[in-house]
């Protein structure tokens, strides 16, 4: 069920504590000692406070990264991107929460909707943290290069790594909650399907809110599918 390495990780999580839950303290805990936060999400303890702090963290960190993304063309685009990136990240997580709740229930989980929302926001906050960690590097390339294609590729790479980190954090959380509670939380197969879903939703949201890097309107209202854009049609 759980391999030795996972058990060792979970045992270390059991020993971790978190006194207060302000957003920035949570950011440190998310990186270093996520055990108490995940325990609270799993038990429903202080769920509103935890979910609220995770939402705030997601918005703040994503807005920071968005501003740096938009600095490639300083001006209105900086503000637009700072608003759009949190909408894309938090919006994708929130849009996919009902699916996560249903998948959880399918697997026999007893997590409430609020707890499920907390898990989705945990993933989004972890994603935002990784974006923030990459921000100085992206800023440096943004101010030292003129190549739009290179910058687009760089941002795509950063988002790919950050999404991977966010989903990995969610995977860790669901397995730890299962370890402590004894009841399954979102089996591996359903977790993979939900991961693919949230990535697809995120890509479509990013496409719908384009442009992100280039200057343009906040929202063009133009409909389309991100796949057709990728295929160049």
């Amino acid at each position: 069920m759980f391999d030795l390495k996972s058990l060792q990780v979970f045992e270390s999580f059991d020993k971790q504590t978190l006194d207060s839950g302000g957003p920035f303290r949570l950011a440190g805990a998310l990186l270093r000692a996520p055990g108490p936060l995940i325990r609270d999400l799993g038990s429903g303890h202080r769920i509103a406070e935890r979910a609220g702090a995770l939402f705030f963290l997601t918005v703040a960190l994503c807005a920071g990264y968005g501003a740096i993304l938009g600095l490639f063309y300083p001006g209105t685009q900086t503000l637009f991107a700072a608003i759009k990136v949190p909408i894309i990240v938090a919006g994708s997580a929130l849009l996919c929460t009902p699916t996560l709740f249903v998948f959880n229930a399918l697997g026999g989980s007893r997590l409430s909707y609020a707890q499920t929302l907390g898990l989705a926001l945990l993933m989004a906050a972890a994603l935002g943290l990784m974006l923030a960690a990459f921000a100085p590097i992206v800023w440096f390339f943004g101010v030292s290069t003129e190549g739009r294609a290179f910058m687009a590729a760089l941002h795509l790479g950063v988002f790919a790594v950050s999404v991977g980190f966010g989903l990995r954090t969610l995977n860790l959380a669901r397995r730890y909650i299962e370890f402590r509670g004894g009841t399954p939380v979102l089996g591996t197969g359903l977790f993979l399907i939900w991961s693919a879903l949230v990535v697809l939703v995120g890509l479509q949201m990013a496409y719908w809110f384009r442009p992100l890097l280039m200057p343009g309107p906040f929202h063009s209202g133009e409909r389309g599918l991100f796949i057709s854009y990728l295929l160049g049609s």
Partner: protein
Amino acid sequence: MNATAVLRADASDLPLRTVLVPLVLGSAVFGASIGSYVGGAQILYAAIKMPLFLLSTLAICMALFGALAAPVIGAARAVGVAVRTIGVTAILLGGLAPPLMLLGLTLPKPEPKGYQAMVLALTAAVAIAGSIAVGRLARELGSRRLAFSWVAVYGFTGAQMAWLLKPWIGYTLEADRFLPLKDNLHGNFYEAAWQTLLNLLR
């Protein structure tokens, strides 16, 4: 002496300011040896730019280093480990400076082969110093995977920083430009490398 203290295997307790002085001196000496091929003002220019290159690349990468290392050693300790690793690299590079300076003073110029030999020697020196420092880093972090991820991030960012701060050896043999920022902001290292590859394949 501070430099030998930094190089010792048990240097993990050294305060950061103890590491910074040999870091700056070692990298400045290495920079001067690179600039010796062109000579004149280029010796001073490269001596100033090399510590700037190492420390500014580290500063830019530090947030990501901290995020990657937080679950393993904590973000705060990660700062010390990162600075000490760059310190070890800089001191080793400083130690390799004298033979490099000899090459710089004796290689033929202007001559493509002389320039290329200098570039190769510089690359070899960085490879030697870097390999030793990475080995030390992996031991301090307790994780080779984490060490290699740090190296990948630093290398990726450092390549662009080196591009931004060029010239280093100075193919044109002109030492009249400390930092032609306006020229360097056109293109970037990776675009130039890609274009070079395309040209080779055509």
